[in-house]
């Protein structure tokens, strides 16, 4: 897993955030057939099911945001990522997500569960502030139980201090 924060993407998102409403690239996918009883998605030929995790990851800046050591504030980069997620969620109003909060291994187990809760909730609250119905978002903290990077160095820890948005269905 690489940490990629494209400057171009952030610029595009910033434009969106100020209401420019210009997508970086046109959505090549047909609109999902909402509420037609076929909401398990249709094969679009690209293999990506609209409203799926794959669709989500392909169309947002990132599925995750990162935090400083023992912190849970959503910084400007995180806001840009969450804005892209909010737009996707607005395009897929029937989709629900789980926000997974995680911590690096440099905290005690129980505290890290509480810290992961803080991080997941910080992300949830920001999405809600962008107009996403909080009832569509559940949170779970994994504390230090599920590291994304398994090294014991600053690079690995930085990848593990995260909140990940996971599509759980409609």
């Amino acid at each position, binding site marked *: 897993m690489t940490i990629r924060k494209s400057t171009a993407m952030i610029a595009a998102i910033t434009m969106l955030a100020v209401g420019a409403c210009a997508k970086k690239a046109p959505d090549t996918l047909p609109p999902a057939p909402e509420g037609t009883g076929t909401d398990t998605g249709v094969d679009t030929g690209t293999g990506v099911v609209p409203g799926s995790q794959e669709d989500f990851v392909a169309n947002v800046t990132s599925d995750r945001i990162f935090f400083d050591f023992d912190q849970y504030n959503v910084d400007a980069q995180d806001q840009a990522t969450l804005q892209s997620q909010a737009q996707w969620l607005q395009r897929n109003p029937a989709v629900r997500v789980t926000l997974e909060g995680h911590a690096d291994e440099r905290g005690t187990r129980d505290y890290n*569960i*509480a810290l992961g*809760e803080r991080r997941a909730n910080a992300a949830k609250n920001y999405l809600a502030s962008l107009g996403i119905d909080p009832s569509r978002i559940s949170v779970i903290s994994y504390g230090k139980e599920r590291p994304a990077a*398994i090294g*014991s160095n600053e690079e690995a820890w930085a990848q593990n201090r995260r909140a990940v948005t996971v599509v759980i269905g409609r």
Partner: protein
Amino acid sequence: MFLRPISLSFALLLTSAPALAQTAPTPPAVTQTEPRETIEGTLSQERTVIGIPPFATASVQTVAGLRTDSLGRQLADVIAADLERSGLFEPIGPNGVRAITRAEVQAPRFGEWQARGAENVVHGFVDAGSNGSLIVGCYLYDTALGSELVRKGFEIQPADWRRAAHKCADAIYSRLSGEAPFFDSRVAYIAESGPKGNRIKRLAIMDSDGGNHRFITNGQALAISPRFSPDYKKIVYVSYLNNRVRVFIYDVASGTQKLVTESANATFAPRWSPDGTQILYSMAVGGNTDIYRISANGGTPVRLTTAPGIDVGGSFSPDGRKIVFESDRSGSQQLYVMNIDGSNQQRISFGGGRYATPEWSPRGDLIAFTRMGGGEFRIGVMTPSGGGVRMLTNSWQDEAPTWSPNGRVIQFFRTTPGREGKSSLWQVDLTGVNLRRLPTPQDGSDPSWGPVLP
């Protein structure tokens, strides 16, 4: 589980070994008049040499598939291992030691043991009892004085033979150290396997020496932070069953479990009250974590903390009147003490670094904790008012202390760094010496040591 202490009376010995009285040799006369010094009330690194030959049997019989003669050796093995692990004793035997006769049990050859340097000697027997039970007796002698110091007898079901050994070791340890017993106790912990990024974590239980190991959960749901109830009948722990973080009470006898409380929020970090009637847990609501107390039978939880931030964990004082817990309300994790109704919350940790996972000693005089600083986690102790901080371990990550029933030994788990980093269970004396790794079939974490069995 069945273990009944019995009095090793003359009559019983006659019953189980009628020929003893006539054939027992007379104990040799005490030739040394200078009284031997015993270790009293303090843990020392000087070890007492103690002879432990295999336990004798009146006649070799097979009870529930166990031969009494091989059991005699296993009993001595467990006792020798217990005493050696305490750090206070240097056992001689049962390996490399002549098997004693049934008659010798009450008439040791003191001169022979003195010649081997043994200050004390343990003799015992295991005989078939009535109704498929076993009778185990053990005796502790002072070889220089030629005197008997301790005798213990137990009627046990064969499956519980290890408990008889632990009870014998406890009696010996207590008599010679002046400390309360602790070997006949159990540990709940988390058995770990699989890659670091996707560990399988199973609830498991074992005796304090690693014997009678048993996996409780199958690993499909992540299990963490178990605590044995004081009567060992239940285990409270956190399960990620159905991708939620919730506290369950597992019933050991029935193999069933129930939620401690129904909530849409994450509940974690459970702890029993000393009398087993109450459970502390932490609950995160909108990212804010507080500590609650609830009856072990359910009912309405009582919220104990209200400060913004993370209030988590907690451990009752042995008298059940106070709770030590951790909070980051000051800006970093520190330890606080409050009354059990949540009143009078006072910070007690003020040294450098972050303090976490406080556990009140069963003796009440100390609180063990994890201190984080300089990139390391270490185990330490302080008084309930925060004084007398002493660090006991020094490694990359030592976390989550739990006390032996007598408050003299602390178990914890140690994690190694890196991509292949693993966790294992360790223990250390209160004095910071006698650091040892506990044997477990897989990697281990989150130990929880229970009280001495009745």
